[in-house]
């Protein structure tokens, strides 16, 4: 009966690369857990993952880390070098899976005798190829949607006739529904087919099950055929909206026992038949009017849903999957939460977990905000509680989009019925508004297909709000009695929401709740509904209950031996909240490293965060995890209960940073740099005065509340100018104006979105270079710093820039000046902890453009390139343990690190893929190399771009850029590429003796046309440089850029990037690129 544990001593694990829409932080979680699980077995783990901001690519996890593209070419190189016995494909999302299948089918794995762990490749293929999948399920009489796999447009049209409209079109082998959509008639079909075929060689034409319930199960199976379902989940939105775009609740709410068990039994039957070993996800459509069902798909790997299920249940799916892949049986593994009971069981929840996606669509120009079968969201949150109303309102606040709960008032809907029938990120608010206006549940059900049970819960929330308002609004708070307050709190109303109704201060409501004794209690996530004792530190707060699961009494604390040891050195770290453009896995890396340092220093480390795709929300990372809101109210609740010695706000990015002042005023002890200093750095006027006092230059700027004053300033400073409302993260709503008209247009917009804050206008420096410094100080004394330079000229948001460390082009004198400025700023602000500054350099002049007294996006990058953990140093500094005498080498390195942005434009229909002052990238990679070109080329490949084989298209707007690019283009000609260009660019090139073929503009409709060339796949790369940094109109350049993206043709829109790429291509044939692991890059 003993299982056959595989005798393996070296495993190659594939990561998922940069964060992108459809493949985000969840794979850092699953990969990290898998590495830990393999290491526990004494196995050497080699990791390939170019995502430098992840925990899994940090010291102390994998034995060797290759920051290389996850592509068959590089993976084979690593296999040849490392000779692993086995490869793990299921922890790195679709990227790892696709790469693994390619390695398998090309015979590379067999050639090098590498065994695939867990689910066999054959089973993966069965789940990935729709036709095979349907055939397999038919063998066991399991229903799938009527679907026909087609390899040509003609086949697809025939299939459409056979099934009948409406139809759903899907591209096979694609992440997160890329290239999918609904077709109601022939024309829509034709358009969708073209797009789908450019994303995949196979397209599926399927029966449309719009309006059916969408249900998912997470299934685990071992090699001995023990099979369980860990969790089921129900989508709030019916079928038709990608599950990654849906609000999802665990466990299911509207299924009875029969349906729950029927789908569960089917899940086990299917997974056994497919012979999956490890973890997988199965999705169903369930008829809301009968027990009819369809199996939609099986993901034979860890997925976003499995990360969610892990966090929702406390069942560590990735760890278990890793162990099972080695041959362990489920029955041989322990439930890690109880440490007593068996892992072969199905968690029982005594709470609800609700996931809401986080979109960031307003960061992209020209993108449609409708959501459907393709993924567009960039992150997600999970809310825990004991009523649906509670988790929904908590969840909406957690999104950090300004919503204080389910309140429709900030969202105007011109046509409510349209907003209800055309889902957008704001539909949930449209539902609330409709109910306020008296729509019946039945009518809403008809319009949206959302189950009446969910609609009724929304109605309950709005009903309570109405009751509150009826008390008499202004200063009627005392009329709110204990019972009503408790009901409000149990339904997820925040102090802020209640304060808004009664026109009181948030803290007044807080005090009133304390008087009424309406307080939240702390409950544990223990996987089994309290059936067995569990020593879990995985916690949440709720108002449905009156007993804390954790004993906070002094007596209990003294009884605890750890307390003696820790001497009350409890410290809370605030996490980074949902991933969105500008705040992503890099801040989770900072938080996890802060927690690690605190624990090493003998502190009890407490984490507050609620993003299910993070490692910081793994309950084994910290001493206590509060999976709850990062709001003033909730942080104070936890602070009051825990009574820690301090709280860290500088690791999780802007969300915790924004709480600093309020928390400080409420009496919280903030560790590190003082709150006054944070305010001095954040407040433009104060910071300007500070720079003036130390005689440091900055671009000319001024704050305005009137348009006329702004105009005269812009005239004086000279166009272009940068326009932005104050206190914004990652450049949202920032714009560059090149003239009066643009300025007026932007001001109209900016003023509308931000009434309280004045608009700031600053001189936009053209042609300047951008340099950043990441640093740590202790009581104003600089401990460590790293200077990096951007490849792009200033004007590209630092989050979208290609960043080089150590700097290759910056003069020594400039470096010295930057260090001096950083020292002066650190001293003036008495900084203790992390900080980041950004500079413009032009003609030996340095100007400061930004200063953040917190860890920045690039901390993991600079820490890993310099091999000094900046967060560890910063955390120690905040604890008063800085080593002032220590010197770190961060400038003179024998290698180069290049950080490259990952864009998700293919998923954002219509978005203009051009870089500007607003951040648009969803993730990043970084590669190492012997020089800039080596590292740059690998990083370029690591974000999924291909090198051109033959044909390259040019369209360059401005004459300066044409001239600037000429030498580069000539070089490409010499290298043997065929060049194509738009009219003016072609003329310029021909005039300069370059052989080039002219192509007509997309709008010209004449042949030879760019659209035609892109559609037929005749172009390998498009270099399209826009005329200005920002524009709203649909230019020809936009049409080319967009088409290139839709046709999956690599697109470059920046002169400096194009030049660097061509230089690198000339220097390094792909075979010459260095294949070295991180440890080999040492000084």
């Amino acid at each position, binding site marked *: *009966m003993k299982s056959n544990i595989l005798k393996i001593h070296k495993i190659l694990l594939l990561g998922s690369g940069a964060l992108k829409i459809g493949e985000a932080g969840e794979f850092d979680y699953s990969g990290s857990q898998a590495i830990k699980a393999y290491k526990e077995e004494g196995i050497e783990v080699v990791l390939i993952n170019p995502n430098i901001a992840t925990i899994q690519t940090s010291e102390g996890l994998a034995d060797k880390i290759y920051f290389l593209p996850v592509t068959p070419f590089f993976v084979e190189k690593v296999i040849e070098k490392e000779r692993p016995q086995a490869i793990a494909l299921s922890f790195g999302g679709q990227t790892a899976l696709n790469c693994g299948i390619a390695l398998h089918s090309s015979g590379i794995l067999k050639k090098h005798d590498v065994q695939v762990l867990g689910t066999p490749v054959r089973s993966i293929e069965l789940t990935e190829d729709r036709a095979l999948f349907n055939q397999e399920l038919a063998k066991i009489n399991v229903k799938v949607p009527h679907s026909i796999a087609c390899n040509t447009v003609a086949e697809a049209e025939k299939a459409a006739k056979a099934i009948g409209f409406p139809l759903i079109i899907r591209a096979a082998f694609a992440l997160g529904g890329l290239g999918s959509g609904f077709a109601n008639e022939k024309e829509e079909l034709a358009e969708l087919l073209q797009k789908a075929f450019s994303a995949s060689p196979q397209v599926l034409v399927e029966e449309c099950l719009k309006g059916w319930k969408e249900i998912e199960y997470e299934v685990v199976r071992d090699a*001995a055929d023990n099979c369980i379902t860990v969790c089921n989940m129900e989508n709030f939105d019916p079928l038709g909206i990608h599950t990654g775009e849906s609000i999802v609740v665990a466990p299911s709410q*509207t299924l009875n*026992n029969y349906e729950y068990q029927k789908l569960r039994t089917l899940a086990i039957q299917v997974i056994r038949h497919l012979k999956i070993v490890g973890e997988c996800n199965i999705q169903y459509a369930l008829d809301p009017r009968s027990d009819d069902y369809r199996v939609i798909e099986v993901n034979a790997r860890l997925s976003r849903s499995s990360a969610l299920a892990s966090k929702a249940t406390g069942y560590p799916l990735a760890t278990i999957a890793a162990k099972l892949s080695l041959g362990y*049986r489920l029955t041989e593994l322990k439930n890690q939460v109880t440490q007593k009971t068996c892992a072969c069981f199905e968690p029982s929840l005594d709470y*609800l977990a609700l996931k809401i996606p986080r979109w960031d669509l307003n960061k992209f120009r020209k993108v449609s905000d409708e959501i459907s079968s393709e993924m567009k969201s960039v992150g997600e949150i999970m809310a825990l509680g004991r009523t*649906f109303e509670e988790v929904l309102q908590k969840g909406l606040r957690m999104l950090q989009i300004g919503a204080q709960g389910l309140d429709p008032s900030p969202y105007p809907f011109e046509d409510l019925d349209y907003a209800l029938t055309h889902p957008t990120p704001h539909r949930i608010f449209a539902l609330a508004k409709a109910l306020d206006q008296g729509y019946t549940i039945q009518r809403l059900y008809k319009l949206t297909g959302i189950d009446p049970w969910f609609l009724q819960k929304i109605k309950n929330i709005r009903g309570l709000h109405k009751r509150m308002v009826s008390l008499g609004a202004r200063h009627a708070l005392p009329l709110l009695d204990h019972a009503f307050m408790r009901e409000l709190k149990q339904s997820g109303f925040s102090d802020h929401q209640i304060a808004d109704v009664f026109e009181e201060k948030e803290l007044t409501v807080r005090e009133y709740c304390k008087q009424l004794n309406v307080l939240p209690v702390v409950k544990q996530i223990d996987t089994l*509904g309290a*059936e067995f004792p569990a020593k879990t530190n995985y916690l949440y707060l709720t108002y449905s209950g*009156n007993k804390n699961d954790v004993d906070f009494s002094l007596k209990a604390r003294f009884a605890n031996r750890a307390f003696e040891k820790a001497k009350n050195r409890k410290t809370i770290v605030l996490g980074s909240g949902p991933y969105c453009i500008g705040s992503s896995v890099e801040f989770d890396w900072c938080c996890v490293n802060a927690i690690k340092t605190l624990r090493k220093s003998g502190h009890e480390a407490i984490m507050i965060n609620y993003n299910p795709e993070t490692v910081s929300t793994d309950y084994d990372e910290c001493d206590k995890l509060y999976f709850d809101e990062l709001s003033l109210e909730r942080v104070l609740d936890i602070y009051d209960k825990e009574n820690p010695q301090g709280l860290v706000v500088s690791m999780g990015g802007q969300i915790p940073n924004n709480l600093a002042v309020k928390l400080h005023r409420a009496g919280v002890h903030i560790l590190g740099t003082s709150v006054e200093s944070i305010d001095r750095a954040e407040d433009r006027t104060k910071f300007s005065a500070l720079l003036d006092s130390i005689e440091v230059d900055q671009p000319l700027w001024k704050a305005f509340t009137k348009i006329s004053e702004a105009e005269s300033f812009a005239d004086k400073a000279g166009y272009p100018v940068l326009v932005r409302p104050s206190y914004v993260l990652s450049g949202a709503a920032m714009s560059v104006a090149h003239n009066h008209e643009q300025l007026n247009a932007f001001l109209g917009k900016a003023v509308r979105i931000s009434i309280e804050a004045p608009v700031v206008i600053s001189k936009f420096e053209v042609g300047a270079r951008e340099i950043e410094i990441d640093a740590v100080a202790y009581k104003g004394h600089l401990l460590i710093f790293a200077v990096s330079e951007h490849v792009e000229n200033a004007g590209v948001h630092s989050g979208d820039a290609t960043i080089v460390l150590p700097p290759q082009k910056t003069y020594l004198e400039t470096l010295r000046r930057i260090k001096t400025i950083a020292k002066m700023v650190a001293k003036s602000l008495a900084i203790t902890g992390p900080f980041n500054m950004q500079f413009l350099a032009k003609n030996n002049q340095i100007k400061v453009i930004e200063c953040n007294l917190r860890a920045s996006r690039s901390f993991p990058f600079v820490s890993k390139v310099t091999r000094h953990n900046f967060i560890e140093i910063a955390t120690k500094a905040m604890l008063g343990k800085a080593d002032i005498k220590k010197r770190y080498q961060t400038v003179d390195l024998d290698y180069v690190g290049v950080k490259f942005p990952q864009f998700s434009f293919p998923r954002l229909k219509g978005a203009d893929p051009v870089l500007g002052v607003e951040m648009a990238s969803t993730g990043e990679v970084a590669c190492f190399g012997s020089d800039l070109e080596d590292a740059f080329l690998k990083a370029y490949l690591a974000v999924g771009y291909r090198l051109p084989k033959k044909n390259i298209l040019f369209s360059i707007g401005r004459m300066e850029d044409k001239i600037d690019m000429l030498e580069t283009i000539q070089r490409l000609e010499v290298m043997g590429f065929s060049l194509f260009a738009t009219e003016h660019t072609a003329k310029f090139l021909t005039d300069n003796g370059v052989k080039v073929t002219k192509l007509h503009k997309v709008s010209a409709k004449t042949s030879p046309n760019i659209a035609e060339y892109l559609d037929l796949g005749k172009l390998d790369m498009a270099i399209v440089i826009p005329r200005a940094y920002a524009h709203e109109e649909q230019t020809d350049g936009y049409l080319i850029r967009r088409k290139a993206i839709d046709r999956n043709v690599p697109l470059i829109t920046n002169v400096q990037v194009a030049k660097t790429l061509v230089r690198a291509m000339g220097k390094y044939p792909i075979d010459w690129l260095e294949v070295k692991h991180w440890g080999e890059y040492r000084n």
Partner: protein
Amino acid sequence: MDRVSALKLVLKDGTEWVGQSFGFLPRETSEINGEVVFNTGMAGYPESLTDPSYRGQILVFTYPLIGNYGIPEESFKKGISEFLESEAIHIRGLIVSEYSPEYSHWQAHQSLSAWLRKHRIPAISGIDTRALTQRLREKGTMLGKIVAPSRLFNSLSPFAAPDEANLVAEVSCERRRILTPKEGFRKTVVAYDCGMKHNIIRSFLARGVRVIHAPWDHNLSREKERYDGVFLSNGPGDPKKATDTIAQVAWSIQHQIPTFGICLGNQLMALAIDGNTYKLKYGHRSVNQPCIDLKTGRCVITSQNHGFAVDVKTLPAGWEPWFSNANDGTNEGIRHKKKPFFSVQFHPEACPGPTDTNYLFDEFIKHL
């Protein structure tokens, strides 16, 4: 609108749990006695409430939201409920965190609240069911009462233990009847109804087995119909009270008749072969219990509802434990090493819960 009145659960240890009534509202002076137990299943409240094994118990659901999909029609075909597990609600009272008055399901016929009122069963919502469960887990299953909030602990009559009565006799059918599958039958079993869930009957009928539905004290030696096997159902309370059934099981085994038991049936089997049973601290009531088949090592996820267990140390020669609970090691089934006598502690008929082990019906039928 449902009436909103307060109601209180009082435990024997003196703790009081006040919430809102959402079922039948008892009179100010009444005391509803019961043994307070908890169930960790997340779906299946209509099935649980009609499971006769809950006779005499006040049931606490650990899942916080109950009532979401209403209650299906109480319809019967040939005396067998179509959607539920018996004709009645067997619990004495229901305790939940949140009752969801709004329900939504295509099969829903009425709300949970209306159904409870119809059957005169009191129910309380707004209770910290997690804290209550922790108390029951730490102190063991406890006697309790549902009373009006005004009632003081000292004024209450003594707490009465339901399992001191012969609960099996209370829930068993009154007279023998024969149920024949629509499509005809190949085999016949005598099924002892000790509080038998209807899905057991449905499971036999669906497999082409005729069921002689017999009361708990039915005398096998006088059964006139030809039968191929004996089945022992689930049921409430202390198995040792069902002495008449135990005697019949012994007779069946003695006469080499294939015999299969579920839940209480497992305990009756053990007692019939002179083994012993004992009361668990707080029992198993859930749909996620892992049980290991001791021969194959395979693990099955099972539905359970029991407060007593078989003491495997007392099994006579020739018998062996069959299944064991992977969490706490308690017995989950026994069998004779050679003869077709076997029983399981869990519920292969599910309802509620996973159907992983319904193959056991087929196993049994193979021996007939």
